[in-house]
């Protein structure tokens, strides 16, 4: 057997665990440290005995509810944060506060690119998903992947979701300036073009008001802190709230 040194393993682990760039281990540590005071409605429902796979709900209330799935990366997964601090949980709280009977499904995977998101779309759309928030592209940007690839992947995600009658909300992302003007311009243009083509609701920049501000980001400079995540939730909520309310009306009138 060929051996594989610890160094390599560390590299591998690093590579596998956090493709988002640099900081995973520290974020993971903070994650554990923060764990002590965790509270909030992130309890998973007990799985039904009949099936080995069951939906993991984020809401406290039981019973099948229409779903809002968020297909995203580490920003959605809440890397370095407690689950209760991640923006999908905050959105769930706001929905609950507004009396909107939705269940938010956090389909965020750290390190996932648009290609990865596309690959697990079907999985994320299981159950009664009414709204799909697509929050992908961050890792495409960090790895400077070709922008046409990003556009094609996101387009396919939107097309497939719309074909199922799911309302799509697209959350935009920006490439950091260090990749040079050509790349960041090309990247920036992907999202508005998709919005125009598919008439989806649009959060222009998921990290608006957070990116680049030291105090709102974790030490890696990429992932929002708990305070930063609240701003992210605000950004999404502005767009999500009217849609969620409108859909509720539809649901009621329908039954």
């Amino acid at each position, binding site marked *: *057997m*060929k*051996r*594989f*040194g*610890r*160094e*390599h*393993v*560390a*590299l*591998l*682990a690093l*590579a*596998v*665990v956090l*493709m988002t*760039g*640099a900081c995973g281990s520290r974020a993971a540590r903070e*994650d*554990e440290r923060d*764990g002590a005071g*965790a*509270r909030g409605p*992130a309890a*998973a*429902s*007990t*799985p039904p005995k009949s099936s*080995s*796979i069951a*939906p*993991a709900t984020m809401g406290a209330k039981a019973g099948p509810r229409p779903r809002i*799935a968020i297909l995203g990366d580490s920003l959605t*997964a809440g*890397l370095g944060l*407690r*689950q*209760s601090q991640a923006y999908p949980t905050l959105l769930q709280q706001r929905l609950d506060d507004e009396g909107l009977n939705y269940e938010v*499904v956090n*389909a965020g*995977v750290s390190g996932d*690119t*648009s*290609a*990865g998101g596309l*690959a*697990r779309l079907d*999985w994320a759309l299981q159950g009664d998903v009414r709204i799909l928030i697509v929050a992908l592209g961050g890792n495409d940007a960090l*790895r*400077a992947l070709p922008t046409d*690839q990003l556009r094609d992947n996101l387009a396919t995600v939107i097309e497939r979701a719309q074909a199922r009658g799911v309302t799509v909300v697209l959350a935009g992302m920006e490439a*950091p300036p*260090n*990749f*040079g003007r*050509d790349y960041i311009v090309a990247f920036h243009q992907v999202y508005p073009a998709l919005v125009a083509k598919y008439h989806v609701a649009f959060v222009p920049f998921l990290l608006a008001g957070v990116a*680049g501000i030291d105090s709102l980001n974790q*030490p890696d400079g*990429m992932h929002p802190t708990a305070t930063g995540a609240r701003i992210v939730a605000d950004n999404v909520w502005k767009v999500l709230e009217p849609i969620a309310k409108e859909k509720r009306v539809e649901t009621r009138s329908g039954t």
Partner: protein
Amino acid sequence: MMFVLRMAARETRSSWRRLLFFFICIAVGVAAIVTLRSVIQSVRQVFGTEAKALIAGDLLIATNREWTPEARQTIDRRLADAGVTDRTETMETPTMVRPADRTRQVAKMAELRAVQRGFPLYGAVELQGGQTYSHALLEGHGALVRPELLTSIGVAVGDQIIIGQTAFTIRGVIAREPGRGMGEFSLGPRVIIDFDDLPSTGLLSFGSRARRVVLVKLPDESRIEALVTTLRDDFRDDFINTRSFRSTEDQVGRDFDRAENYLSLVGLIIVILGGIAVSSVTRVFILQKIRSIAVLKCVGARSTQIVAVYLLQVVTLGLAGSLLGVALARGVVAAIPMALGGSTSLLATVHYGVTWSAATQGVGIGVLVSLLFSVVPLLHVRFIKPSLLLRDETVRRRMDWLGLGVLVAVSAALVALTAWQAASLKAGLVVCAGFAGLAFVLQLAGQGLITLVKPLAMSKSFPLRHAVLHLSRPGNQTRVILLAVGLGAFFIVGVRSLQGSLLSEFSVQVAADGPDMFLLDVQRAQADGVRAFLADPARDIGDFQLIPVLRGRVVGVSGRETNLEGADEVRQRGNSIGREFTLTYRDRLESNERVVDGAFWNGPSTEPEVSIEKQIAERAKIHVGDTMRFDILGQTVSPKVTSIRDVEWRESRNGGFVFVFRPGVLDKAPQTFVAPFRGPHDVTARARFQHDLVERFPNVSVIDFHEVLETIRDVMSKVTLAITVVGGLVLLSGVLILIGAVAMTKFQRVYEAAVFKTLGANTRTIAKMLLIEYGVLGSLAGLIGSLGAVALTWGVSKYALEIPWRIFPSEHTAGVLLTALLVAVIGVLSSLEVLRNKPLATLRAE
């Protein structure tokens, strides 16, 4: 006083042959100490230089934010306080590089590094084609690039590339670069430009991701750690990291640390070995003098005078022997480069010479140890009565306050000496305790041996009978030889085994066929295509495997000992399982895995099952039969734990996973594949490979850590060679020391052999007798020493070096056999003179 001097001189003249031997034994011991310490000091210096080249400075201060004016001020102030002579700044950022020729639509992600004139503070940037690096190459928009970049965007030296908004001319190709961060991986080839040209690229503005580094060189190495601590305190709440070249945060740092610990240990051990030799030689020497002392007492010499005479002799000889030892050491050290032959280039930078501190320490130890070990027996002189001469009775051991006091002082001095050598009181105490413990065991073994072989004293065979009797008669040397040889074998075998352990630890990292490339984010639909691509024999890559990976969190456990409900409870109470995990599923165990509980499945199943890594299972108190709940991308999967695996993380070629699922349930879940493998050997082939792969599978990322591994291999092979050289020296000097210690005991046997001869024993009988006596002693000493060495390697591996304990049965067996053989042969050989000559000469001389 004159009497003392005159007596000392006369004594020396009369028994010069015996004294010469004493003198040589001390010289060998001291030579061993001085040689090893000198080599170790030089090697450590090389380690230091290598380690500094890895970060290109004594220490670095880095941040991925912009430097604030306050941070700058603090840094300036601290560096000025520490007397920093040299500093330089670099900035690193990932960016896109494209050819200046706009008609070609190709761009490649690269790791840009902007450096100032002072870079690097240690090590050197090596360029291809023998070109020498100077900062002038970068000035005026010049760039140095890695060969991979040339292939991937199709440019050559002399061409222009665009970085940001600016054109740069490629002026050279980087072969190796100091300060290529270890433990960091990169997604693109390196490009180096001038720090002053960076602003013109326009890459750095609000939201840019860049790492800013200040590299520092200190005139005084001892101030580095203090400066690191101060800066870490200063920037505790900022996003600024400080690390020194000694930092053990990565694998290479830890290995350097281990190598250094090993070397200090060896240095300490050789001092003890030398000390044992000197002490046993001193002891025999003094015992030989008892008759003369009795005579002196008869003619009216006072005890103090006698003690002074012999102390003076011992100190003079000790000093002279030590000085000879230093001279010998000089010769040996000078010969090392010759002995190494072709491989010297590896350690070419080592300065081969005896260092002053090593020489001083060696001489100090030679004199001190011979003095310390002669004081105790000399004190017995006070109890030697003139009647001894007439009655030939044995000296009765008596202990009075003075004797006890001296013994305590001697022991304290020894501990102090050891602690000084080990540069730590704790280490000194531990080593001395181990040493005393083993000495005690050896004493007991001596007693045991005497009782054990007693029946053999009735044997019909004359040599056997007398050999056995020799072991138990008054004036026997059982304990002396057992102690010296046993401890000697203990240390030599111990050092050899540790060396073996350490080197196999290092070889794991030096393995040339280990994976050095890594594919990431292969989508399910691409898996077959990637497999076919990698399997193409033209690619020249090693074995590969596509491993499915999924991300998941534990959100519940219901089991015998642990019951956790929900993600938050898992995070609060589930020890170490509260984080996000990378999961996989497969149908077989990797070769670095072993099932320690339960049974690993066979074939897929629709019922979910999971196998847990042992340590995590223990910490979280999860057992076979428990049920866990995982949240995998928003879906809950509740597998039963059916086995616990022991994973040898260090040898996990294919990553290593805490949770492995049984195939069947997760197959349909969203997953990507990763693939570790050994990439093509040739640098252009590697570049071509990456280029082709990314062209066909644009979303797949290739991580190439070949360059980082090369650096590690280079450094580790130097460390390995250094340790091998030191190990060889230990063996050589250890054996010489033991030869001296054993041969010295011949003076006890010479007279007896002569008597036996007079009584009619022939040379063969006496030789046989000696062979059996020394053979038994050697075997026992070797056995105890080798067994002790097992304990030593265990303790040192576990606590000092922090490496897994390995046992080398061949080393230990060889230790026993060779010790027995060596002792027996020396025992006979050193008495050769009396065996060959007529007995009368010996009898008269005595």
